[in-house]
């Protein structure tokens, strides 16, 4: 990384004094933004904890309605995408833009695979009348608890899925930028910031997977 600071560095925005200040500001800004994301999902996770304790038998029953295999595949897919994202940041720091684009492509493909699997899971829930609302139907005495479980399931995975979708778009824009400027020296910070966001999306899933799929027990 270059430490010298020129007066008219093309990579330096006008409000900053030097590249170090600029890099620090962007990275700190991203971390502060991720703090807001922690509390955004935190509110729903609190609701999940409380209702799971209130309706323990119902939640145990509802866990079984989710396919831990599909969730597990999705976990592996997202972990892989996180790994390739980290490698893309590394390639960007090494100014190897060909490798960077390759790693970003794998990341996007993983993200899309995640969404496709999620789509199949969702449509199965619709078929089995497990989507809360007028269409919901569940036999037995745990009806309220099961509906709450699936309400939180769709709210949590829906917002997480939305974050994945946003990630796909942002990585797409980043790839276009890297490709367009591949002949020049580029700042690695945009990749670093997208990477931080993407790893956060992965972390959310790291918690959602055991919470939603595994806590009721798994039968192989």
């Amino acid at each position, binding site marked *: 990384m270059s430490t010298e600071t020129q007066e008219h560095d093309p990579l330096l925005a006008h*409000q900053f004094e030097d590249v170090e200040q600029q890099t620090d500001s962007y990275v700190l800004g991203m971390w502060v933004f991720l703090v807001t994301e922690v509390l955004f999902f935190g509110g729903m996770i609190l609701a999940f904890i409380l209702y799971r304790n209130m*309706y323990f038998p119902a939640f145990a029953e509802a866990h079984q309605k989710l396919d831990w295999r599909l969730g597990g595949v999705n976990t592996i897919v997202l972990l892989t995408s996180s790994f390739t994202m980290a490698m893309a940041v590394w390639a960007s720091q090494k100014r190897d833009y060909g490798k960077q684009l390759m790693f970003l492509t794998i990341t996007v493909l993983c993200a899309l695979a995640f969404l496709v699997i999620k789509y199949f899971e969702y449509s199965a829930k619709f078929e089995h009348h497990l989507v809360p609302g007028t269409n919901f139907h569940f036999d037995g005495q745990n009806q309220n608890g099961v509906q709450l479980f699936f309400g939180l399931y769709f709210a949590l995975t829906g*917002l997480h899925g939305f974050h994945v979708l946003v990630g796909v778009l942002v990585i797409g824009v980043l790839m276009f930028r890297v490709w367009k400027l591949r002949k020049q020296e580029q700042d690695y910070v945009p990749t670093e910031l997208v990477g931080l966001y993407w790893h956060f999306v992965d972390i959310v899933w790291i918690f959602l997977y055991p919470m939603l799929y595994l806590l009721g027990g798994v039968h192989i």
Partner: protein
Amino acid sequence: MSAVAEPKTEKNYLNVDYSIKSWLTTLDHKRIGILYLVAITIFFMVGGFMALLIRTELATPQGDLLSSDQYNRAFTMHGVVLIFFFLLPSTPAVLGNFLLPIMIGARDVAFPKLNLASWYAFMIGGTLGVISLVLGGIDTGWTFYAPYSSNFSNTPVVWAIAGAFVAGFGNIATAVNFIVTIHKMRAPGLTWFRLPLFVWAQYATAVIGVLGTPVIAITIFLVAFERLTGMGIFDPARGGDPILMQHLFWFYSHPAVYIMILPAMGVTSEMIAAASQKRVFGYEFVAFSSLAIAIIGFLVWGHHLFVSGQSVFAGLVFSVLTFIVAIPSAIKTFNWVATMYKGNLQMNTPMFWAVAFLGLFLIGGLTGLFLSSLATDIHLHDTYFVVAHFHYIMVGGAIIGFIGGLHFWWPKITGRMYPESWGKAGAIMVFTGFSLTFLPQFVLGQLGMPRRYHTYPEEFQILHVLSTGGAYLLGFAMTTIIVYLAWSAKYGKPAPPNPWKAKGLEWETPSPPPTENFTYKVVVTEPAYNYHKDSGGHH
């Protein structure tokens, strides 16, 4: 005073480009501050009109002007508009945007594009809120309590929720921007303990914005989700728990009161220091009390749930924690008074506003202690006592601080002086009108008048008529202020760089400042409020 002879020669942020496009695409923090000012003034007038509707209805014991349904909509829209679209962005987004980078000697905030985006998010949110108003207004109360808001109300709740949700993104963006700006953009030599207290207050405010706003976002998202899908996360009929909604709501909305009052406290510190020509007494204590309020403010939300079905144990814990938050507030108040003591007092307009703030905030804060006592609150909960208490904080504190700050920095923002006698008259009228409106409400509440009713027993009429009269005086005073400030922006006397002989980087640059804020490289070598060296002011 050469500025009088040739006012147009120097380029500043206002005369650099006059086109509408240059304003709507500006990345200049000063212009974005002005954009916010124009937008929130409109929302202020809408919310103020609702207030007058409410007070007019309450002039008589019968429900003759508004039906109960219309009354519900009027007080809900009053709250929604003034809290989400006026108070939350008021001091941070207007004065903070304008002043923060100048006070720390920077050319701009860390992320200018994000700053502009936050204004557009605010405008989209505001537009959604206005749509809910045009569709008839909502009747849930500004708190959106479920399950009424989610499964029962027949009003356009989702529009208002969407508005508050999107405007929340604007608040988060501004908060992230300020945090990074204060950490990373300070001029050489400007250490944390040389920062003006306004900057400390803005930092504490931004911390609350970042930590709290996402929680209310998810809360009202779930309410809207419940309303749209018909599931029952907060509906007890379907197994949900409405008290959870209140926990989540107040986790943000109680600290949000500090989002409103902390920046006003920062403004007050600046005004009192300048008008006393003295360093703020106990600078470090005032600075840290801002952070203490921000953090302790997150531990007290349960005092809104004392009679909601929260456990008695939790009520006790929250009651004790609420008492603690009074300590940093009291530290500030004592230190402001100590700053004035033996100061070279300038009885100018900003000082009038600062004194009004001190008195009203004191009453608002102390009545808060009544309400944080469990047993007293059972009697006073949901009465006019509560209404009066939070208006003392949010109007007597936050709005008076904001308008005072607007007067203090108006010469810097517009390059023009407002008429001083009008400024003082405005402060006196606001103080009188406000006190007349809300002092009787403490009595009403203690006598048992509940909030959110449009009819009442005849024996309460005299107090209600006093309150309504005060509200009209307050409305008249606010209109007067808007008119003379707007007038002075064009026709006022040109302002010198430092009309108050105040200390601070913003007073060392021309009025109005150039686009890049300073024409020289800022290096700070002295502490904040360094008045003692030349107590008669410098130059």
